Protein backbone atom coordinates (compact mmCIF):
# COMPACT_ATOMS: atom_id res chain seq x y z
CA UNK A 1 0.00 0.00 0.00
CA UNK A 2 1.22 3.49 -0.72
CA UNK A 3 1.90 6.32 1.69
CA UNK A 4 -1.54 7.80 1.01
CA UNK A 5 -3.15 4.64 2.36
CA UNK A 6 -1.29 4.87 5.68
CA UNK A 7 -2.03 8.56 5.92
CA UNK A 8 -5.72 7.83 5.48
CA UNK A 9 -5.64 5.06 8.07
CA UNK A 10 -3.80 7.27 10.57
CA UNK A 11 -6.29 10.08 10.04
CA UNK A 12 -9.20 7.68 10.42
CA UNK A 13 -7.85 6.51 13.77
CA UNK A 14 -7.12 9.99 15.11
CA UNK A 15 -10.55 11.23 13.93
CA UNK A 16 -12.32 8.17 15.33
CA UNK A 17 -13.76 7.09 12.00
CA UNK A 18 -14.30 3.50 13.02
CA UNK A 19 -16.06 2.43 9.80
CA UNK A 20 -13.13 3.68 7.75
CA UNK A 21 -10.62 1.99 10.04
CA UNK A 22 -12.55 -1.25 9.65
CA UNK A 23 -12.70 -0.93 5.86
CA UNK A 24 -9.08 0.12 5.39
CA UNK A 25 -7.70 -2.70 7.55
CA UNK A 26 -9.76 -5.30 5.66
CA UNK A 27 -8.79 -3.89 2.27
CA UNK A 28 -5.11 -3.99 3.13
CA UNK A 29 -5.29 -7.56 4.45
CA UNK A 30 -7.10 -8.63 1.27
CA UNK A 31 -4.31 -7.13 -0.78
CA UNK A 32 -1.85 -9.26 1.17
CA UNK A 33 -0.27 -6.55 3.34
CA UNK A 34 1.15 -7.99 6.54
CA UNK A 35 -0.98 -7.36 9.63
CA UNK A 36 2.19 -6.26 11.44
CA UNK A 37 2.83 -3.55 8.88
CA UNK A 38 -0.76 -2.26 9.04
CA UNK A 39 -0.45 -2.21 12.80
CA UNK A 40 2.93 -0.48 13.00
CA UNK A 41 2.61 2.04 10.17
CA UNK A 42 -1.10 2.68 10.60
CA UNK A 43 -2.67 2.02 13.97
CA UNK A 44 0.37 2.43 16.24
CA UNK A 45 1.69 5.40 14.27
CA UNK A 46 -1.68 7.08 14.84
CA UNK A 47 -1.59 6.39 18.56
CA UNK A 48 1.93 7.79 18.75
CA UNK A 49 0.69 11.01 17.18
CA UNK A 50 -2.17 11.28 19.66
CA UNK A 51 0.19 10.55 22.58
CA UNK A 52 2.48 13.37 21.38
CA UNK A 53 -0.43 15.79 21.09
CA UNK A 54 -1.71 14.85 24.54
CA UNK A 55 1.74 15.48 25.99
CA UNK A 56 1.90 18.91 24.32
CA UNK A 57 -1.60 19.76 25.48
CA UNK A 58 -3.00 20.21 21.97
CA UNK A 59 -5.63 17.47 22.41
CA UNK A 60 -7.69 16.45 25.45
CA UNK A 61 -9.26 13.34 26.95
CA UNK A 62 -12.03 12.98 24.31
CA UNK A 63 -9.48 12.77 21.49
CA UNK A 64 -7.44 10.19 23.41
CA UNK A 65 -10.52 8.05 24.04
CA UNK A 66 -11.76 8.40 20.47
CA UNK A 67 -8.44 7.30 18.98
CA UNK A 68 -8.09 4.39 21.42
CA UNK A 69 -11.56 3.16 20.47
CA UNK A 70 -10.74 3.29 16.76
CA UNK A 71 -7.43 1.54 17.33
CA UNK A 72 -9.29 -1.21 19.13
CA UNK A 73 -11.56 -1.72 16.11
CA UNK A 74 -8.56 -2.08 13.81
CA UNK A 75 -6.75 -4.35 16.22
CA UNK A 76 -9.72 -6.73 16.42
CA UNK A 77 -9.53 -7.19 12.65
CA UNK A 78 -5.79 -7.69 12.61
CA UNK A 79 -5.64 -9.89 15.69
CA UNK A 80 -6.19 -13.32 14.10
CA UNK A 81 -3.38 -12.56 11.62
CA UNK A 82 -1.08 -11.21 14.30
CA UNK A 83 -1.57 -14.32 16.43
CA UNK A 84 -0.83 -16.56 13.43
CA UNK A 85 2.31 -14.61 12.62
CA UNK A 86 3.52 -14.73 16.20
CA UNK A 87 3.17 -18.50 16.63
CA UNK A 88 2.52 -18.06 20.32
CA UNK A 89 1.84 -15.00 22.46
CA UNK A 90 4.96 -13.38 23.89
CA UNK A 91 4.17 -13.49 27.58
CA UNK A 92 1.23 -13.24 29.89
CA UNK A 93 0.76 -9.91 31.58
CA UNK A 94 -1.53 -9.12 34.50
CA UNK A 95 -2.78 -5.55 34.34
CA UNK A 96 -4.90 -3.40 36.63
CA UNK A 97 -5.53 -0.03 38.25
CA UNK A 98 -4.70 -0.15 41.96
CA UNK A 99 -7.04 -0.07 44.92
CA UNK A 100 -9.28 2.98 45.42
CA UNK A 101 -8.51 4.23 41.92
CA UNK A 102 -11.11 4.20 39.13
CA UNK A 103 -9.07 5.77 36.33
CA UNK A 104 -8.69 3.34 33.47
CA UNK A 105 -8.19 5.31 30.26
CA UNK A 106 -4.40 5.04 30.49
CA UNK A 107 -4.48 1.47 31.72
CA UNK A 108 -6.65 0.46 28.77
CA UNK A 109 -4.21 2.08 26.37
CA UNK A 110 -1.38 0.16 28.03
CA UNK A 111 -3.47 -2.99 27.50
CA UNK A 112 -4.00 -2.12 23.84
CA UNK A 113 -0.30 -1.47 23.29
CA UNK A 114 0.67 -4.72 24.99
CA UNK A 115 -1.83 -6.65 22.88
CA UNK A 116 -0.53 -4.90 19.77
CA UNK A 117 2.94 -6.10 20.67
CA UNK A 118 1.78 -9.69 20.99
CA UNK A 119 1.44 -9.96 24.77
CA UNK A 120 -1.49 -11.80 26.29
CA UNK A 121 -3.23 -9.41 28.65
CA UNK A 122 -5.20 -10.37 31.72
CA UNK A 123 -7.01 -7.17 32.64
CA UNK A 124 -8.27 -7.08 36.22
CA UNK A 125 -10.03 -3.73 35.80
CA UNK A 126 -9.95 -0.93 38.34
CA UNK A 127 -9.83 -0.67 42.15
CA UNK A 128 -7.81 -3.90 42.29
CA UNK A 129 -6.74 -5.05 45.76
CA UNK A 130 -3.16 -6.34 46.24
CA UNK A 131 -4.32 -9.91 46.88
CA UNK A 132 -6.12 -9.93 43.53
CA UNK A 133 -2.90 -9.16 41.65
CA UNK A 134 -1.17 -12.03 43.45
CA UNK A 135 -4.04 -14.41 42.84
CA UNK A 136 -4.16 -13.58 39.12
CA UNK A 137 -0.44 -14.29 38.81
CA UNK A 138 -0.82 -17.60 40.63
CA UNK A 139 -3.72 -18.65 38.43
CA UNK A 140 -2.27 -17.56 35.10
CA UNK A 141 1.44 -18.08 35.63
CA UNK A 142 2.01 -14.54 34.31
CA UNK A 143 5.54 -13.21 34.61
CA UNK A 144 4.66 -9.54 34.34
CA UNK A 145 2.44 -7.38 36.54
CA UNK A 146 1.42 -3.90 35.40
CA UNK A 147 -0.11 -1.43 37.80
CA UNK A 148 -1.59 1.91 36.95
CA UNK A 149 -2.38 4.77 39.37
CA UNK A 150 -3.67 8.25 38.55
CA UNK A 151 -4.09 9.57 42.07
CA UNK A 152 -1.31 10.54 44.42
CA UNK A 153 -3.46 8.90 47.10
CA UNK A 154 -3.60 5.55 45.30
CA UNK A 155 0.07 5.43 44.23
CA UNK A 156 0.66 4.47 47.83
CA UNK A 157 -0.92 1.09 47.09
CA UNK A 158 1.89 0.10 44.71
CA UNK A 159 3.99 -0.61 47.79
CA UNK A 160 1.33 -2.91 49.20
CA UNK A 161 1.23 -4.91 46.00
CA UNK A 162 5.03 -5.28 45.98
CA UNK A 163 4.80 -6.41 49.60
CA UNK A 164 2.02 -8.90 48.80
CA UNK A 165 4.22 -10.49 46.13
CA UNK A 166 7.08 -10.71 48.62
CA UNK A 167 4.84 -12.39 51.16
CA UNK A 168 3.60 -14.87 48.58
CA UNK A 169 7.23 -15.73 47.76
CA UNK A 170 6.69 -14.55 44.18
CA UNK A 171 8.56 -11.24 44.10
CA UNK A 172 11.52 -12.59 42.17
CA UNK A 173 9.46 -14.43 39.62
CA UNK A 174 7.53 -11.41 38.33
CA UNK A 175 8.53 -8.15 36.69
CA UNK A 176 6.62 -5.38 38.42
CA UNK A 177 5.82 -2.45 36.14
CA UNK A 178 4.23 0.80 37.26
CA UNK A 179 2.88 3.88 35.53
CA UNK A 180 0.20 6.56 35.39
CA UNK A 181 0.47 10.33 35.13
CA UNK A 182 1.68 11.17 38.69
CA UNK A 183 4.21 8.32 38.84
CA UNK A 184 7.87 9.24 38.44
CA UNK A 185 11.02 7.22 37.91
CA UNK A 186 12.21 8.20 41.39
CA UNK A 187 9.02 6.97 43.01
CA UNK A 188 9.15 3.73 41.01
CA UNK A 189 12.66 3.01 42.18
CA UNK A 190 11.80 3.87 45.79
CA UNK A 191 9.13 1.19 45.83
CA UNK A 192 11.46 -1.26 44.05
CA UNK A 193 9.42 -1.61 40.89
CA UNK A 194 11.30 -3.18 37.98
CA UNK A 195 10.03 -1.03 35.15
CA UNK A 196 8.57 2.45 34.86
CA UNK A 197 7.70 4.23 31.65
CA UNK A 198 5.84 7.50 31.24
CA UNK A 199 3.82 6.29 28.27
CA UNK A 200 2.26 3.15 26.89
CA UNK A 201 4.08 3.10 23.57
CA UNK A 202 7.58 3.25 25.03
CA UNK A 203 6.52 0.81 27.72
CA UNK A 204 5.46 -1.95 25.31
CA UNK A 205 8.77 -1.57 23.48
CA UNK A 206 10.71 -1.57 26.75
CA UNK A 207 8.99 -4.74 27.92
CA UNK A 208 9.62 -6.42 24.60
CA UNK A 209 13.36 -5.65 24.88
CA UNK A 210 13.48 -6.73 28.51
CA UNK A 211 11.94 -10.12 27.77
CA UNK A 212 13.81 -10.73 24.52
Amino acid at each position, binding site marked *: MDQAFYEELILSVT*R*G*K*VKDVDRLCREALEKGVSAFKILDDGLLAAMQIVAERWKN*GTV*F*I*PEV*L*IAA*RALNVGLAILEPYLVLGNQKPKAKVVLGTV*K*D*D*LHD*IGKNIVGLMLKSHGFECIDLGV*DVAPAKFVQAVKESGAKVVCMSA*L*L*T*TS*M*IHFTEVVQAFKEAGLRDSVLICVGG*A*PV*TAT*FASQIEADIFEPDAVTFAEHLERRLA
Partner: protein
Amino acid sequence: MSRRIIACEVFKPYLDKLLEESGVEAVDYLEIRQHDHPELLARSIQSIIDETKDVDEILLFYGLCGNAILPLVSKGIPIKVLRVHDCAAALMGSNAAYRKRFEGNPHKRYHCLSYGERDDEYFARTSPEYRKISEEYGEDNADYVFSMLYDKFSTPVTYIKLGLDGEESQIRRKEEGYYSVIEGDLGLLRRMLKGDDDHVCVTLHPHEKFVGIYDYEEILTTVNRNHDREKTREE
Protein backbone atom coordinates in the same frame (compact mmCIF):
# COMPACT_ATOMS: atom_id res chain seq x y z
CA MET B 1 0.79 41.83 55.01
CA SER B 2 -0.29 42.17 51.38
CA ARG B 3 -1.01 39.11 49.32
CA ARG B 4 -2.48 37.77 46.13
CA ILE B 5 -4.88 34.86 46.17
CA ILE B 6 -5.00 32.42 43.28
CA ALA B 7 -7.49 29.58 43.51
CA CYS B 8 -9.16 26.77 41.66
CA GLU B 9 -12.74 27.67 40.88
CA VAL B 10 -13.85 24.63 42.86
CA PHE B 11 -13.24 26.73 46.00
CA LYS B 12 -15.16 29.80 44.84
CA PRO B 13 -18.39 29.44 46.85
CA TYR B 14 -16.41 28.66 50.02
CA LEU B 15 -13.80 31.37 49.67
CA ASP B 16 -16.51 33.89 48.82
CA LYS B 17 -18.21 33.00 52.07
CA LEU B 18 -15.03 33.03 54.15
CA LEU B 19 -13.83 36.29 52.66
CA GLU B 20 -17.16 37.87 53.41
CA GLU B 21 -16.56 36.99 57.06
CA SER B 22 -13.00 38.29 57.13
CA GLY B 23 -13.13 41.23 54.75
CA VAL B 24 -13.38 40.95 50.99
CA GLU B 25 -10.27 40.46 48.91
CA ALA B 26 -10.00 39.79 45.21
CA VAL B 27 -9.28 36.23 44.17
CA ASP B 28 -8.01 35.06 40.79
CA TYR B 29 -9.93 31.92 39.95
CA LEU B 30 -8.78 29.40 37.37
CA GLU B 31 -11.29 27.13 35.67
CA ILE B 32 -11.77 23.68 37.24
CA ARG B 33 -11.28 22.06 33.85
CA GLN B 34 -7.67 23.17 33.75
CA HIS B 35 -6.93 20.27 36.10
CA ASP B 36 -7.54 17.91 33.21
CA HIS B 37 -4.05 18.74 32.11
CA PRO B 38 -1.59 19.11 35.02
CA GLU B 39 1.21 20.59 32.88
CA LEU B 40 -1.04 23.22 31.36
CA LEU B 41 -2.49 24.03 34.77
CA ALA B 42 1.02 24.60 36.12
CA ARG B 43 1.75 26.94 33.21
CA SER B 44 -1.42 28.97 33.84
CA ILE B 45 -0.67 29.33 37.55
CA GLN B 46 2.96 30.21 36.86
CA SER B 47 2.00 32.95 34.45
CA ILE B 48 -0.17 34.63 37.11
CA ILE B 49 2.64 34.23 39.64
CA ASP B 50 5.10 35.79 37.22
CA GLU B 51 3.02 38.89 36.61
CA THR B 52 2.45 39.45 40.34
CA LYS B 53 4.29 42.38 41.85
CA ASP B 54 4.25 44.41 45.05
CA VAL B 55 2.81 41.80 47.39
CA ASP B 56 4.44 39.97 50.31
CA GLU B 57 3.09 36.53 49.52
CA ILE B 58 1.00 34.49 47.12
CA LEU B 59 -1.67 32.16 48.50
CA LEU B 60 -2.44 29.27 46.19
CA PHE B 61 -5.63 27.38 46.83
CA TYR B 62 -4.38 24.23 45.16
CA GLY B 63 -2.99 21.00 46.56
CA LEU B 64 -0.57 18.54 45.03
CA CYS B 65 -3.34 17.97 42.40
CA GLY B 66 -1.76 15.06 40.58
CA ASN B 67 1.69 16.72 40.75
CA ALA B 68 0.40 19.75 38.85
CA ILE B 69 2.00 22.20 41.27
CA LEU B 70 5.45 20.58 41.35
CA PRO B 71 6.94 22.65 38.49
CA LEU B 72 6.05 26.01 40.07
CA VAL B 73 8.84 28.42 40.92
CA SER B 74 9.01 31.52 43.05
CA LYS B 75 10.98 34.34 41.48
CA GLY B 76 10.95 36.44 44.64
CA ILE B 77 7.55 36.32 46.32
CA PRO B 78 6.99 33.28 48.60
CA ILE B 79 4.17 30.97 47.45
CA LYS B 80 1.96 29.12 49.89
CA VAL B 81 0.15 25.97 48.76
CA LEU B 82 -2.39 23.88 50.67
CA ARG B 83 -0.82 20.77 52.20
CA VAL B 84 -3.40 18.42 50.66
CA HIS B 85 -3.62 15.91 47.84
CA ASP B 86 -6.59 17.59 46.21
CA CYS B 87 -9.78 19.60 46.69
CA ALA B 88 -11.64 16.69 48.25
CA ALA B 89 -9.21 16.65 51.18
CA ALA B 90 -9.32 20.44 51.49
CA LEU B 91 -13.12 20.43 51.71
CA MET B 92 -13.15 17.60 54.24
CA GLY B 93 -10.91 19.75 56.43
CA SER B 94 -7.90 17.43 56.73
CA ASN B 95 -5.91 14.72 55.03
CA ALA B 96 -6.77 12.34 57.87
CA ALA B 97 -10.50 12.83 57.24
CA TYR B 98 -9.92 12.24 53.53
CA ARG B 99 -7.99 9.07 54.15
CA LYS B 100 -10.67 7.69 56.42
CA ARG B 101 -13.29 8.37 53.81
CA PHE B 102 -11.30 7.37 50.75
CA GLU B 103 -9.51 4.14 51.58
CA GLY B 104 -11.58 1.07 50.85
CA ASN B 105 -14.77 3.13 50.53
CA PRO B 106 -16.91 2.31 47.50
CA HIS B 107 -17.99 5.96 47.10
CA LYS B 108 -14.81 7.16 45.52
CA ARG B 109 -16.01 10.14 43.53
CA TYR B 110 -16.71 13.47 45.15
CA HIS B 111 -19.05 16.30 44.50
CA CYS B 112 -19.62 19.60 46.18
CA LEU B 113 -21.53 22.72 45.20
CA SER B 114 -19.08 23.91 42.57
CA TYR B 115 -18.00 20.51 41.27
CA GLY B 116 -21.56 19.25 41.06
CA GLU B 117 -22.64 22.21 38.98
CA ARG B 118 -19.77 21.75 36.62
CA ASP B 119 -20.34 18.02 36.27
CA ASP B 120 -24.04 18.44 35.63
CA GLU B 121 -23.23 20.82 32.84
CA TYR B 122 -20.26 18.97 31.51
CA PHE B 123 -21.50 15.42 31.55
CA ALA B 124 -25.09 15.84 30.38
CA ARG B 125 -25.83 14.73 26.83
CA THR B 126 -27.31 18.20 26.31
CA SER B 127 -24.05 19.94 27.25
CA PRO B 128 -22.11 22.20 24.87
CA GLU B 129 -19.18 19.81 25.33
CA TYR B 130 -21.25 16.89 24.04
CA ARG B 131 -22.42 18.93 21.10
CA LYS B 132 -18.87 20.00 20.31
CA ILE B 133 -17.56 16.44 20.28
CA SER B 134 -20.57 15.27 18.23
CA GLU B 135 -20.03 17.95 15.64
CA GLU B 136 -16.35 17.22 15.34
CA TYR B 137 -16.22 13.44 15.68
CA GLY B 138 -19.80 12.22 15.27
CA GLU B 139 -22.49 11.28 17.72
CA ASP B 140 -21.24 7.72 18.28
CA ASN B 141 -17.84 9.02 19.42
CA ALA B 142 -19.40 11.63 21.70
CA ASP B 143 -21.57 8.95 23.20
CA TYR B 144 -18.57 6.70 23.72
CA VAL B 145 -16.55 9.46 25.40
CA PHE B 146 -19.36 10.27 27.79
CA SER B 147 -19.97 6.64 28.59
CA MET B 148 -16.29 6.17 29.47
CA LEU B 149 -16.04 9.33 31.52
CA TYR B 150 -19.28 9.15 33.35
CA ASP B 151 -21.91 6.49 32.71
CA LYS B 152 -19.74 3.52 33.53
CA PHE B 153 -19.38 4.53 37.15
CA SER B 154 -22.16 3.37 39.34
CA THR B 155 -23.40 5.74 42.00
CA PRO B 156 -23.29 6.81 44.77
CA VAL B 157 -21.03 9.79 44.69
CA THR B 158 -19.88 11.30 47.98
CA TYR B 159 -21.39 14.76 48.34
CA ILE B 160 -19.40 17.09 50.59
CA LYS B 161 -21.84 19.44 52.24
CA LEU B 162 -20.55 22.65 53.77
CA GLY B 163 -23.71 24.45 54.76
CA LEU B 164 -24.08 26.72 51.73
CA ASP B 165 -27.21 27.83 49.97
CA GLY B 166 -27.90 25.75 46.92
CA GLU B 167 -26.52 22.48 48.25
CA GLU B 168 -29.87 21.02 49.29
CA SER B 169 -31.51 21.73 45.97
CA GLN B 170 -28.52 20.33 44.11
CA ILE B 171 -28.74 17.11 46.09
CA ARG B 172 -32.51 16.91 45.54
CA ARG B 173 -32.12 17.29 41.78
CA LYS B 174 -30.52 13.84 41.63
CA GLU B 175 -32.41 10.62 42.08
CA GLU B 176 -32.58 9.04 45.51
CA GLY B 177 -29.34 7.26 46.40
CA TYR B 178 -27.21 9.09 43.82
CA TYR B 179 -25.35 10.90 46.56
CA SER B 180 -23.97 9.71 49.84
CA VAL B 181 -23.85 12.98 51.77
CA ILE B 182 -21.12 13.83 54.30
CA GLU B 183 -20.41 16.97 56.31
CA GLY B 184 -17.29 18.81 55.16
CA ASP B 185 -15.20 21.24 57.17
CA LEU B 186 -14.04 24.69 56.06
CA GLY B 187 -11.44 24.86 58.87
CA LEU B 188 -8.50 24.19 56.61
CA LEU B 189 -9.43 26.90 54.11
CA ARG B 190 -10.14 29.32 56.95
CA ARG B 191 -6.74 28.70 58.54
CA MET B 192 -5.01 29.11 55.22
CA LEU B 193 -6.70 32.49 54.76
CA LYS B 194 -5.73 33.56 58.27
CA GLY B 195 -2.17 32.51 57.61
CA ASP B 196 -1.79 31.37 61.19
CA ASP B 197 -0.90 27.71 60.85
CA ASP B 198 2.12 26.45 59.06
CA HIS B 199 0.95 22.87 58.84
CA VAL B 200 -2.00 23.71 56.59
CA CYS B 201 0.33 24.90 53.88
CA VAL B 202 3.79 24.52 52.43
CA THR B 203 5.79 27.64 51.54
CA LEU B 204 7.94 27.79 48.44
CA HIS B 205 10.77 30.33 48.49
CA PRO B 206 13.01 31.37 45.61
CA HIS B 207 15.71 28.75 44.98
CA GLU B 208 13.41 26.02 46.25
CA LYS B 209 11.24 23.48 44.48
CA PHE B 210 8.29 21.37 45.55
CA VAL B 211 8.70 17.63 46.02
CA GLY B 212 5.80 15.18 46.42
CA ILE B 213 5.88 12.94 49.50
CA TYR B 214 2.78 10.81 48.73
CA ASP B 215 1.64 10.05 52.25
CA TYR B 216 -1.27 11.37 54.30
CA GLU B 217 0.61 13.74 56.59
CA GLU B 218 3.33 15.66 54.87
CA ILE B 219 1.97 15.29 51.30
CA LEU B 220 4.59 17.60 49.85
CA THR B 221 7.66 19.50 50.90
CA THR B 222 10.29 21.81 49.43
CA VAL B 223 14.00 21.29 48.82
CA ASN B 224 16.75 23.56 47.60
CA ARG B 225 16.69 23.69 43.81
CA ASN B 226 20.47 23.46 43.71
CA HIS B 227 20.35 20.29 45.76
CA ASP B 228 20.16 17.96 42.78
CA ARG B 229 22.78 19.87 40.88
CA GLU B 230 25.20 19.68 43.82
CA LYS B 231 24.57 15.98 44.17
CA THR B 232 25.38 15.37 40.51
CA ARG B 233 28.55 17.42 40.83
CA GLU B 234 29.71 15.33 43.81
CA GLU B 235 29.18 12.07 41.95
